[in-house]
């Protein structure tokens, strides 16, 4: 499933600083739930990892050593990162949760990787072992509305994955 263009379009005008602030809150929440997320990176923990959705005009660069996440508008120039992975946002999120197999997505050409392959492989394995569940992990940010937010997020994920990742898993 590609992210609908009509929903992606506003991301061209919303200030990047605002998007980065929101993304950082979500990132910190995931790190709080999974403090050992980057242990498997070992010697690669100091590197920078770019996640480049092909269907939204943004690039997310994760620096595990801090840990922090930066957001930038997508440009033709390669991002300032040691390793990059490109693919539809749904698949990148599914990879983050270990709900699809990165090798299978590579074989099917849905995913493109470049840069430091050793570092990217370590990141793939770190994510795969971490049992991240975004609806569960992020819903706590909604306070008393957490159960509702979690259910809605799970429903969205279910629909997105049934169309795409469901082909493999």
């Amino acid at each position: 499933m590609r992210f609908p263009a009509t929903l992606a379009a506003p991301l061209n005008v919303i200030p990047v600083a605002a998007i980065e602030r929101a993304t950082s809150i979500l990132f910190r929440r995931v790190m709080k739930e999974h403090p050992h997320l980057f242990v498997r990176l070992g010697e690669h923990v100091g590197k920078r990892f770019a996640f480049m959705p092909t269907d939204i005009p943004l690039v997310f660069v994760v620096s595990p050593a801090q840990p922090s996440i930066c957001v930038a508008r997508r440009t033709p120039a390669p991002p300032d990162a040691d390793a990059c992975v490109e693919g539809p946002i749904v698949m990148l999120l599914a990879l983050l949760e270990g709900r699809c197999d990165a090798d299978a997505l590579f074989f099917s050409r849905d995913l493109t990787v470049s840069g430091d392959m050793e570092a990217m492989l370590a990141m793939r394995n770190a994510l795969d072992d971490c049992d991240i569940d975004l609806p569960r992990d992020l819903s706590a940010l909604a306070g008393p509305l957490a159960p509702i937010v979690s259910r809605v997020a799970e429903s969205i994920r279910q629909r997105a994955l049934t169309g795409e990742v469901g082909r493999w898993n």
Partner: protein
Amino acid sequence: MELICPAGTPAAFREAVDAGADAVYCGFRDETNARNFPGLNFTRDELREAIVYAGRNGTQTFVALNTFMRAGDEEIWYRAAADAVALGADALILADFGLMAHVAEHYPDQRLHVSVQASASNVDAINFLVDAFNAKRVVLPRTLTIADIARIAPKIRCEIEVFVFGGLCVMAEGRCSLSSYATGKSPNMNGVCSPASHVRYRKEADELVSELGAYTINRFAAGEAAGYPTLCKGRFDIADEPGYAFEDPVSLDVMGEIDALTAAGVSALKIEGRQRGKAYVAEVVSTLKKALSAKPDDRPALLAHLRGLSEGQKTTSGAYEKRWR
């Protein structure tokens, strides 16, 4: 018939157990096993927890120590064997005769399996390992036909395990030097085939170009299914025609031959893929588990969708049927 399943991380291990594996095989986070990839494998503590989890579910844990000891550094492998035994591994999967001798001498009660990396492919070789090191099971190299296996089985004094699904090596297991030739590192000595540190991908017009060290391995046209960047799966110009010199980028699938393998004397079926994600492990293990109890006519439909998970999105019966060109 046992189903032996791969796990590269504790999460994948739990998925394999939950999906119904009879045994899960895994390795330590070092060069003592043939899947020594960045971020993969188990610490001692992780293996301890995994063995407990498996035990609670009636699943066995096999520990792969299936690389060849480096002269002068044998202690790394001896320590790994000692730790695996102490943690309660149900079997050690070994390739190096020296390590087999060490385990047989120091841990005579420990169950020992002969790794595919040992390339034990005939009656004399297998019975030698049984007599010398009390090997209880041999994982046969993927060089034999089902008829070959049937001829070997009644003459050997141990169980037979064969690979039925997953990545397929060029047929020189334990002896392949292609990765070493291109990168200086091999699965046999370092636990890495085509180490990621030597792999590069780049786009060239519409093509995806994969490179290993100084070698271009393949150029995939837009939309063409891709494969691993290994020399054995490389597409090279041969007499001015591009083609796969060693083997095509495909995966093994002989689950359609379960009955023939059973009749041939096989007692365990192995899935390759410790380097794969937990989603792959869960899907393949649960599907193959269903296939084992399904009627033969129902198996193709069950197994068909696994092709999409495979290298090159294609599968082959490989040497089991020897139908290649």
